[in-house]
């Protein structure tokens, strides 16, 4: 299941959908807004997407993950707009009969998402100002 949302991500609902009787393992990844990056304080992050294309790319990633690993459920949700401190900008929930698949697919999906999905992050600094994040630098999430 692929979703872009302007609202807080409902992680418990993703877990519930992942907990199918065919599965033995669930891995949920949340990327959340971190307060400090190299000593500078972040007030919040905001995200903008090329929505139609982002959905297509995310669907492609889900399909590739399902070809590569044996997955029961696979959900990717990205929040857009402002994401306050400690709240999730992205959630990936995968379930699989055996745990290696869930861990590997979850890790691959977030790495691939950050490489190819047309979504952009803007840092809003606590001391004022805002910057669009340049990839390959460290930013106020999980990079």
């Amino acid at each position, binding site marked *: 299941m692929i979703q872009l949302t302007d609202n807080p991500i409902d992680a418990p609902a993703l877990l519930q959908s992942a907990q199918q009787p065919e599965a033995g393992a669930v891995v949920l990844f949340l*990327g959340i807004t971190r307060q400090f990056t190299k000593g500078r304080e972040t007030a919040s992050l905001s*995200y*903008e*997407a*090329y929505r*139609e*294309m*982002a959905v*297509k790319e995310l669907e492609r990633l889900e399909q590739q993950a399902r070809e590569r690993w044996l997955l029961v459920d696979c959900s990717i949700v*990205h929040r857009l707009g402002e994401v306050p401190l400690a709240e999730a*900008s*992205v959630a990936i929930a995968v379930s699989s009969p055996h745990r290696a698949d869930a861990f590997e697919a979850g890790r691959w999906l*977030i790495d691939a*998402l*950050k*490489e*190819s*999905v*047309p*979504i*952009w*992050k*803007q840092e809003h600094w606590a001391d004022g100002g805002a910057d*669009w*994040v*340049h*990839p*390959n630098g460290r*930013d106020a*999430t*999980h*990079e």
Partner: protein
Amino acid sequence: MKLTVKLFAAARELAGCGEIGIELPTGATVGELRAGLVVAAPSLAALAQSSMVAVNEEYAIDATLLRESDVAALIPPVSGG
């Protein structure tokens, strides 16, 4: 032919608008669209170099041929997640 190029994030802010219309010769390539975009919006010069171009919601290369009805977009380096 006239194509509309969607702009996002830093590109949208530099250009001051969410899309730009570009006039291109029939059979133009994505590379020519990229050059035309910088003529139409010089503020995009640096960013257009480091950006990808999507055509009809798929990543394209500079050699890709464009058609009148195509939907193009400039995709600055992505930073979701």
